[in-house]
């Protein structure tokens, strides 16, 4: 038996931007399917509005900046932004809401900074925060699970999400909430647990394809789990929720694998990504537990996007062959 001796150079095709973006789009499919299955076709409607609008805005800006249209539109980055925002928005969002969000994401958060690769903030999350602060009523109407509407368990088509219920709950034990509140499921919210598991599956696919490294998602999920375990009081009426509840609620998995892994807006080095992810998990829990907002992924991500250059500055990897060096600061100035 002989080993096959292939001569160098062993060049292989690197992942292009378009391939990466297509993989990300592919990986969102299970999550989108779960969202549609449990909350109706509202998310698909959002997608149908968001994607053409994103391409339109992108084309307009490229035209204004006199850049080649086909090249930049073909990298799918605008589509990914649109898909991420459409998933994050409540199902059945009005057209104008999606339009304002996409416009803000593409024009202000992305192209004012020079386009893909230069934007310091995640465009979809900027748009989400802008919409949440400007139109709180429209943004906090999440669709009720279909099964509840069909069985007549609730009136109306929207209801408070489990995170919201838990936040405003101060009379019932958590176990009672799970037993009596129709919005709760086995481990977290009805439907929400499967949505989160689907995004987890999609994320694992991307991890397997090496679209991003494991550092940021693992750091974020473990810091969220640790914080919620630390403040978990066994399920009293003032409980902040169990680690499992937090991991499978709201935007946790979607954020961990599709938002904070954005290579442009996150920290660059592996060590930096660990810090970056862990701090997002911490902020997420702090705002969920004590802030005004039931879910806080967008805020946590924006805050850490803001801190990412600083984290990079202090987590520069050691160059091979050199000793670890302090960041280039003038010591004599202090």
């Amino acid at each position: 038996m002989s080993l096959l001796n292939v001569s160098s150079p062993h060049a292989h095709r690197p992942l292009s931007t378009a391939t990466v973006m297509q993989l990300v789009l592919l990986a969102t499919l299970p999550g989108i399917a779960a969202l549609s299955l449990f909350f109706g076709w509202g998310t698909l409607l959002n997608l149908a509005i968001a994607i053409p609008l994103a391409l339109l805005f992108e084309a307009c800006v490229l035209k204004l900046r006199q850049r080649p249209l086909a090249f930049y539109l073909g990298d799918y980055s605008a589509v990914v932004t649109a898909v991420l925002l459409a998933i994050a928005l409540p199902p059945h969002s009005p057209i104008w809401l999606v339009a304002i969000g996409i416009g803000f994401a593409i024009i202000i958060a992305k192209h004012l900074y020079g386009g893909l690769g230069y934007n310091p903030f995640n465009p979809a999350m900027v748009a989400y925060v802008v919409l949440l602060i400007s139109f709180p009523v429209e943004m906090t109407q999440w669709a009720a699970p279909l099964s509840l509407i069909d069985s007549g368990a609730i009136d109306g088509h929207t209801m408070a999400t489990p995170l919201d219920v838990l936040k405003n709950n101060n009379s019932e034990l958590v176990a009672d909430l799970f037993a009596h509140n129709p919005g709760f499921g086995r481990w977290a919210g009805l439907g929400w647990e499967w949505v989160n598991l689907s995004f987890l599956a999609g994320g694992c696919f991307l991890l397997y394809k090496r679209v991003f490294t494991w550092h940021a998602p693992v750091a974020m999920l473990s810091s969220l789990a640790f914080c919620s375990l630390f403040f978990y009081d066994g399920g009293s009426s003032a409980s902040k929720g169990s680690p499992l509840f937090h991991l499978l609620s709201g935007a946790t998995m979607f954020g961990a694998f599709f938002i904070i892994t954005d290579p442009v807006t996150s920290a660059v080095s592996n060590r930096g990504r660990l810090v970056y992810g862990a701090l997002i998990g911490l902020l997420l829990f702090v705002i969920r537990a004590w802030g005004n907002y039931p879910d806080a992924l967008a805020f946590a991500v924006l805050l850490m996007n803001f801190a990412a250059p600083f984290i990079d500055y202090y987590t520069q990897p050691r160059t091979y062959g050199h000793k670890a060096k302090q960041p280039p600061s003038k010591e004599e100035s202090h």
Partner: protein
Amino acid sequence: MLADYALLLISAVLVNNFVLVQFLGLCPFMGVSNKLETAIGMSSATTFVLTLASICSWLTYQWLLVPLGLEYLRTISFILVIAVVVQFTEMVVRKTSPLLYKVLGVFLPLITTNCAVLGVALLNINKNHSFMESALYGFGAAAGFSLVLVLFAAMRERLAAADVPTPFKGAAIGMITAGLMSLAFMGFAGLV
């Protein structure tokens, strides 16, 4: 008691951040944030001045103005106190670190006109803070100012290399970034 102090600190640093939520002290925020090193120097100088100024102005108000019934003179007397503290800091920095003195340049005396400093002194009186609370509030305001200034400086170093459209280069994109950061800080609402 300790919990109250902790909440006061969190409030001053994050929830009511002086730069991004109350929009005080914007001039040094935009002016000294082009380089990270300068920003760190400016932050430490401002932290020192702000803490000291809020203590001194509290003492001036409670021990001098109130006994004499001259409360209406507080704005002008606080400006005087702040100017003295800044002058003192300038002398210290000049002797201990000539390089930092050169780097900070005109911005060191400009701390006098940093509206955050006067703002903290006046807010301390408005909110009826005790001596300890005033000192903590001043320190918290300065810590919040330093936090966003340093982070903003690191970000602006990166923005300098970005392919920003010509009309938005420099201060314009800096202001837009500051606006987006201010949006992000609204997420802290309700923590205290």
